[in-house]
Structure formats: structure tokens, C-alpha cells
């Protein structure tokens, strides 16, 4: 990695400029003053402890999803299934918490609820991730498409769940589950905000991946992405790599499902994922697949979302969906920068997931066309 590669810096600067120009253009197009917009953005992020707390709360799901995507992306496995895995994790966690409540008669201590919720969420998310992994290993079903399609099935499952077996007994405007028992909620970390203890989990996961980066397993995955046959000699078979990396990302997403239910909403809602599917991937790449970078990128994405709401109320005309546009532009920019970089992200380039079996690079291909 050459830190002072001039071309890379020029490119980075142009991406930043492009993002700012696009943002300003969108604000002007909406008939507002960009300076007022920026002011609203800053206020939306920092004007009160509650708002700072909201940024932290928003960074948790996207941060965990992005962190746990590190192994998969390193290996060139593009899973876009976080959305569906969060949903299944959240359903499993909610059901498990209510099960514990009914078994113990509501007398269970918080720690039991958290443990059960965490495990159930992980199991649900992990199971949801193993399905596309199995399809990819066994029949070479493109994992991008299978995870995208499974997200819609998970959404259907959630809709049905909230209408039937986990539906709130009360009449509610939107479909939702009953409120979780008081003890099951994650305690608040900062008084007066929605910031909860789940934030500490992000730090734990980030540290774990920071240490993992230097391990042999991490290197094997990087090798797998560019030289599958060499990776095979290091013990990274195709099936082991796909199963393990997708399981890690699925468990991460499942934990997010539990955190969103127990820490933020205190009940299962239709909006439990909050559109983390693509954002998680974007944050992982924006953070250069490095834990610290990802945590910063997650905070940035969350601040952008929160700030856009502030911008909407400050200007009165700029819709808060401006945040999504900026994220998209940013991700394109990051992809351009990554193309120049000789870091882990650049290793993705040759690993473009095979869309049909014929373009694969497995040993079976040996006698193929040549």
C-alpha cells in the first residue's frame, strides 16, 4: 500500500468534490440554499444529546452488518442478504424472548433474556444465510441473486408473522408484535437518548475483526478471492469458504435483528431492517474492509441519514431521501478509488462472482475451453 500514491489522492479528492457537487446540486434543485441545508444537516446530527444518540443508534445495525461482511467480501463472496437475515433474526429473537417470558412467568432476569435473544437472533440470521450458501456450494446458484430473492421471501414471512402468531393483541395502526417484557430491553447507555448497550457490541466485534485480520484464516480468504487453486492448498476449499463467510455475515445480521427489537423499537415492526441491506455492503467497502474504517464509515452513513432529516426540517423543501442519493454516489466513487488501490478491496476485482458456472475458476474448469 503506497500511502502517497498521487493518483489515488487525486481520485479521492475528486470523489469528495463530486459528492459535494451532487449534494449541492440536489439542494439547489429543490429550491433551497445549500448553506441553510448544510446548517440543517449539522444541527440534525449534533444539536442535542438525543440527536447524537440517534446517530450512534443508527450506526449500530449498519456497522455490525458491514463488520461481519468483512470475511465474505475478502473472499469475493457477495452476499446481499443482510436485509432478510435481519428479519429472520429479529423474528427468532422476538419469539424466543416471549417464550422465555411465558416459561418463567415473566420473572426472568435481564441477562437471560439478552442471552436468549442474542442466541436466537444469531441462529435465525445464520440459518437464513446458510440457505444461499448451500445453493451456491451445491449447485452454483449465484449468491447475489439468491440472497436478493430471499430478502423478499423474508419480508413476506415478516408480514405474515406480524399478522398472525406474533401479532400484538391490541389494535394497532401498523402491524407489530406486543411490547417485549421490560427486563428484555437493552438498557440505555446515555440517559435521555435511545443509545443502548448494543453499541458496545460493535466495539467488541470491531476489535475481534481487528485481531482476526492478522490471522492465517484472513489471508486464506484473500488468496481464495484471487487464486482459488492456491487457496485450496492452504485448506480453503470452496465450500468451507462460502459456508463460513456467509455464516459469519448471517450471524451478524441476525444479531442486528435482535438489537433492533430489544434495543431500539422494543417490539417487532415491519420496518425492522431499515434498509440496511445495501448500506452494509457500502459501508464495508467505504471502510476499506478494515474494522476502524468501517466503524467510521458506519457513523458517517448514520450521520448522513440523521442529518438529512435535519436538512429537511431546516429547508422545508429538501426531501431526506437525499441521503440515499449521496450514499449511492459515494459508493460509486469508492469503487473507483478501490480500483486503483492495491488493498483488500482491490482484491475484489478479479473475484467477480461467477454469474453462471461456465465462467467459474474451479478445478472442474481445467479441461474447459483453452
Amino acid at each position, binding site marked *: 500500500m503506497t500511502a502517497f500514491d498521487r493518483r489515488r489522492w487525486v481520485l479521492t479528492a475528486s470523489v469528495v468534490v463530486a459528492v459535494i457537487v451532487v449534494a449541492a446540486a*440536489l439542494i439547489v*434543485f*429543490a429550491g433551497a440554499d445549500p448553506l441553510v441545508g448544510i446548517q440543517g444537516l449539522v444541527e440534525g446530527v449534533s444539536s442535542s444529546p438525543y440527536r447524537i444518540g440517534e446517530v450512534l443508534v443508527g450506526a449500530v445495525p449498519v456497522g455490525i452488518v458491514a463488520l461481519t461482511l468483512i470475511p465474505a467480501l475478502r473472499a469475493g463472496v*457477495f452476499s446481499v442478504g443482510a436485509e432478510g437475515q435481519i428479519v429472520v433474526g429479529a423474528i427468532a429473537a422476538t419469539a424466543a424472548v416471549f417464550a422465555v417470558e411465558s416459561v418463567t412467568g415473566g420473572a426472568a432476569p435481564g441477562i437471560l433474556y439478552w442471552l436468549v435473544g442474542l442466541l436466537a437472533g444469531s441462529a435465525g440470521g445464520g440459518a437464513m444465510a446458510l440457505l444461499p450458501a448451500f*445453493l451456491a456450494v451445491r*449447485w*452454483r*446458484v*449465484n449468491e*447475489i*441473486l439468491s440472497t*436478493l*430473492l*430471499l*430478502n*423478499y*421471501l423474508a419480508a*413476506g*414471512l415478516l*408480514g*405474515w408473522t406480524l*399478522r398472525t402468531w406474533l401479532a400484538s393483541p391490541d389494535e394497532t395502526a401498523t402491524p407489530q408484535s406486543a411490547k417485549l417484557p421490560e427486563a428484555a430491553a437493552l438498557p440505555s447507555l446515555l440517559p435521555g437518548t435511545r443509545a443502548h448497550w448494543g453499541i458496545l457490541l460493535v466495539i467488541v466485534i470491531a476489535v475481534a475483526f481487528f485481531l482476526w485480520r492478522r490471522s492465517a484464516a484472513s489471508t486464506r480468504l484473500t488468496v481464495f478471492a484471487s487464486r482459488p487453486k492456491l487457496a485450496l492448498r492452504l485448506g480453503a476449499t470452496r465450500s468451507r469458504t462460502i459456508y463460513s463467510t456467509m455464516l459469519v455475515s448471517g450471524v451478524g445480521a441476525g444479531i442486528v435483528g435482535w438489537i433492533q427489537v430489544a434495543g431500539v423499537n422494543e417490539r417487532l415492526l415491519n420496518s425492522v431492517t431499515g434498509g440496511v441491506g*445495501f448500506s452494509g*455492503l*457500502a459501508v464495508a*467497502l467505504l471502510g476499506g474492509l478494515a474494522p476502524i474504517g468501517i466503524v467510521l464509515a458506519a457513523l458517517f452513513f448514520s450521520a448522513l441519514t440523521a442529518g438529512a432529516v435535519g436538512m429537511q426540517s431546516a429547508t422545508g*423543501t429538501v*426531501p431526506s*431521501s*437525499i*441521503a*440515499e*442519493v*449521496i*450514499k*449511492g*454516489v459515494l*459508493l*460509486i466513487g*469508492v*469503487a*473507483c478509488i*478501490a*480500483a486503483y488501490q492495491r488493498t483488500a478491496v482491490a482484491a*475484489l*476485482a478479479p473475484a*467477480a*462472482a461467477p*454469474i*453462471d*458456472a*461456465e*465462467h*467459474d475458476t474451479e478445478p*472442474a*474448469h*481445467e*479441461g*474447459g*475451453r483453452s
Partner: protein
Amino acid sequence: MSVELWVAILAGTLALAAPLVFAGIGEGFVERAGRINLGIEGMMIMGAFTGVWAGSLGGPLVGLVAGAGVGLVMAVGMNLVIHRLHANEIVVGLAVTMLGLGLSTYLFQLWIPSGETNVTVQTVPRADLGPLTDIPVIGPVLFGQSPLVYAAAVLLVAAWAVTRFTRFGLAVQAVGSDPDAAALRGVRVQRTGASALLIGGALAGLGGAAITVGTIGSFTPDITAGRGYIVLAVVIMGRSRPVGIALGALLFAFLQSFALLSQSTALTLPSEVYQSAPYLVTLVVLVITSRRQLRRLYRSTTGRAAT
């Protein structure tokens, strides 16, 4: 179930399949050229929005052209980023989808601030085929359709002909199966791939516009609801061939049409089952196709090893 209901379902199938066929034919060229356009969902939704917006100004035809234009512009940008700046095709594709979903919502909310009633534009008028429409069952299903359905059928034949008989079609094939060999034979690899992507983008935009201007008449955020991904799956199922793509599109559209009309059926399954069925069946067919392709691959490799 009554005959009338089946007629309605089948007629709906053709109408719902048209946008998928447009986008699928385009993506077929892209994938036959050895590329993939994961931005297709973003291009479709931008086409859907632009179609309604332009349609409100100049009528349905203008809306369709504008939708295709937006898809084309997005594909030009995507080609630039991927092939001039060498950015990862998958990441850029997903980013384009993210951008399209965000931008269409942004522009829509600017156009129609929340609280105001949504604009409904005139849809493409139905073709009047006179006495043909009066034939029982077949009439309303085949001849009472929007012109877009017939346009999709014409495009299908055209795409088949282009693939089989034109220099461009063969060049796309050559580039997709072996870029190096194609280059040696004088095929311009970059340019052929770019052309395929531009066709794919324009048809994705047109497909998006066909959803709104063709049948619904108005736009709402996320109106495409993953049709772009369905198209990608359909193209893989159809092995990038026009006829296969059309069959895949019809299958998905049939299930969707069935879901829309499921309320009036005697079957009492949860509504989510109907809504999820198109995605589930797409996944299942995708698995079957992948499995068959894998087998074919093994057979061809072991066969060659033996000789």
C-alpha cells in the same frame, strides 16, 4: 374458479410480462457479452419515475422515450466508471441500484410533496383490434392488450434475429465466450460490451416506464419492488436467449397476476403466500437452471478429458 377469472389472470400475465421482457432482452445482450448489470433495478425505477413525469408533460409515448433515455444515460455513466476507471462491476451495479432507488424517491418527493395527491397520467391506450377482441377467451387475452405487449413480442423476434443473423449479435457472442479470441479476430471487445450495456440500460429504462406508463399510470417509491432482480434471474434461467427470457418473464408475470387477483379466488391462503410466490418460484427455477448448467459443465469437461 370461473373462466372470467382465468381470462383476467392470463390477460394480466401478458401485461405484467411486457416490462420484464423489455428489460430482460436488454440484460440478455449484456450477459451474452460476458457482463452483468446489477444496476438494472435502479435503471428500471428511474425509468418508471421519468416515464410518469415526462408522460404528465407530453403523453405516454414521450414518457416511454424519456424512460428509455434515462436508462441509457445511466448505462453510459456505468460503462464509463467500469471500463474507463476499472471499478468493480458488481459494486458499481449495486451502487447504481442504490442511487436509482434514492434519486427516484428524492425527485418524486420534490415533485409531489407528501400530503399532496399523487399525479396519475394517461396510460398507453389499448389497441383496438375490432372483431378479434370479441373472440371468447382468446380475444380478451391476446387481442385486448396494451400495444406495449405487442411491442415486447416484436422486440423478442427482433432480438432473436439480431442475435442469430447480424454481425453485432455474433460479436456479442464472441466477446462473451472468449474476449481474447474475439479480439484476435478483430472484434472490438470494449465497444461491443459497451454497446450491449447501453442497449441493456435503455431497455431497462423502457421496462421501468412500461410498468408505470403502461399499466399503473402513477409512480410510488419502490414501485419496481425487485423486478430488476427478477429480470437478472430470468435472464440466467433463459440462458440469455430471447425465448428463454420470455418464458421466464411469463412465469413470473403469471404468478404475479395470480397474486393480484387472488382475493377473488376460492383459495384461502395468507395473502403473503401469493405475494411471495413469484420470488420463491423464481428462486426455485434459478436453482434448477444452475444445477442443470453445472451438470452440463461437468459432462463437457469429463467428456473432453476422456478423448
